[in-house]
């Protein structure tokens, strides 16, 4: 799956949340999206899943079956966990309770099968969210902060589920702002900063990021000089011109 010059904003008057995103999610691999709160990680994930549509550019080669685990499971629904998963299975074209029962069992949800969604704890609701995304094996699994609310035992499930999907040739996109990435050692890392997405290969321990403000007229000259000195310029942004900011040169 490929992001091809994807731009996104939440309204005509809003600033760009993501700008000129060019990135590839290889099949069979896991991509961890890093970034501070509000950087645009969830937006990027929803664009990948197809929940949001780019304002400019396109997302190409999205697999036909996409599983999406939203950051907050929509628990305000008048169903029990079992009824909800059965209905979601029907939406995916599954007949019979076998697949639902398999996931209830695997995610240790069987005892909560008859509990109303609104009465579930945050972690249990999150597991229901995981189950609905995995009822049919996804070609792309999008996990938005999947560790939120899960206890230490349940947390170990995430790398297992991710490994299952990638082993079958599917791709996984997962956001993380809590440092849980250690459970996914082979993952590709993307960093979302100021609307731009770039590989997080500057995470080496001997590197730091220094933000420098320069006069507009001297920007090009400074970039050239920094590069000549062997530094890597990660991005240039103009705080007064939202639309043109943030593109790495």
């Amino acid at each position, binding site marked *: 799956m490929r992001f091809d010059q994807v731009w996104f904003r939440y309204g005509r008057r809003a600033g760009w949340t993501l700008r000129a995103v060019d990135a590839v999610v290889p099949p069979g691999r896991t991509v961890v999206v890093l970034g501070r709160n509000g950087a645009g990680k969830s937006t990027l994930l929803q664009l990948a*899943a197809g*929940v*949001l549509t780019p304002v400019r550019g396109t997302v190409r080669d999205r697999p036909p079956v996409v599983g*999406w685990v*939203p950051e907050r499971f929509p628990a305000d*629904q*008048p169903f029990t966990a079992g009824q909800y998963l059965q209905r*979601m299975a029907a939406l*995916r074209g599954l007949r019979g309770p076998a697949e639902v029962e398999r996931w209830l069992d695997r995610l240790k949800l069987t005892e909560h099968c008859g509990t109303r969604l609104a009465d579930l704890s945050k972690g249990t609701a999150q597991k229901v969210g995981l189950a609905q995304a995995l009822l049919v094996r996804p070609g792309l699994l999008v996990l938005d902060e999947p560790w939120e609310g899960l206890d230490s035992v349940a947390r170990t499930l995430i790398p297992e589920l991710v490994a299952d999907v990638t082993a079958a040739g599917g791709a996984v996109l997962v956001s993380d702002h809590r440092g849980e990435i250690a459970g996914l050692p082979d993952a590709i890392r993307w960093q979302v900063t100021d609307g731009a997405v770039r590989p997080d290969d500057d995470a080496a321990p001997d590197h730091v990021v220094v933000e420098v403000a320069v006069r507009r007229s001297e920007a090009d000259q400074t970039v050239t000089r920094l590069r000549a000195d062997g530094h890597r310029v990660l991005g240039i942004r103009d705080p007064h011109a939202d639309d043109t900011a943030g593109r790495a040169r």
Partner: protein
Amino acid sequence: MIALTRMRIAAFLRSGRALAPLIAGLVVLGLIYGGGSSAAAPAYGYSAVMLFPVLAWQTKLLLDAEPDVQRRLARLAVGAGHEASAGLLAAAILGVAYCAAAMLAPLPFHGIRDRLPGTAEPALATGVAVGVLAHLLALLAALALGALASRAVTGTIRNGLTVLVLGAVLAVVLGLGDSVAPWLAPPLMATARAATEVPLPDLGRFTLLTAWAAGWATAALAGYAVLRRRRA
């Protein structure tokens, strides 16, 4: 799509959101039939006009019953087109049930009477047929208005209510006899006026009204489809 339609109807009924339009409908029917019995065609014609905003409201409530995130999950599961269509189908099924109940409700209370002997009033069966048509045309327009007022399109409750109320008021005001642009509104008032005429207008008039309502609803629902393409 059928599974999603069933899920949405179940969610709407179980959540208790169906109660408010039901009570509003009872008030409307009480106002229409409280004064005594009346011939079928004009009574049902007025009933269709007065139930139009209630049906549009019910459509909006049904489409808004699902949390936004769940609507997006459903969209991923069945596709954007089927997700939007399933909501409309669920609203149409409940709307038909609502209209049927509204037409049957006055019968036990003798709210509908047979043709008066010696008059040019239509027969009871003809009057009921005109009433069914009037309710179906009102439902068609209400589905379109309710869909355009739904949260998936308008984003906020305030905007949604503005579209709903403005649409309902304009449908009546623009449909008045001396309106400058009656074609801008669905033919609710025109159908009600036709239903009160004695003798009833010929079939051609009702065919024209049906085509008008279908054209209006098609245009409005096409607008809904275009808006929903970008708004999940």
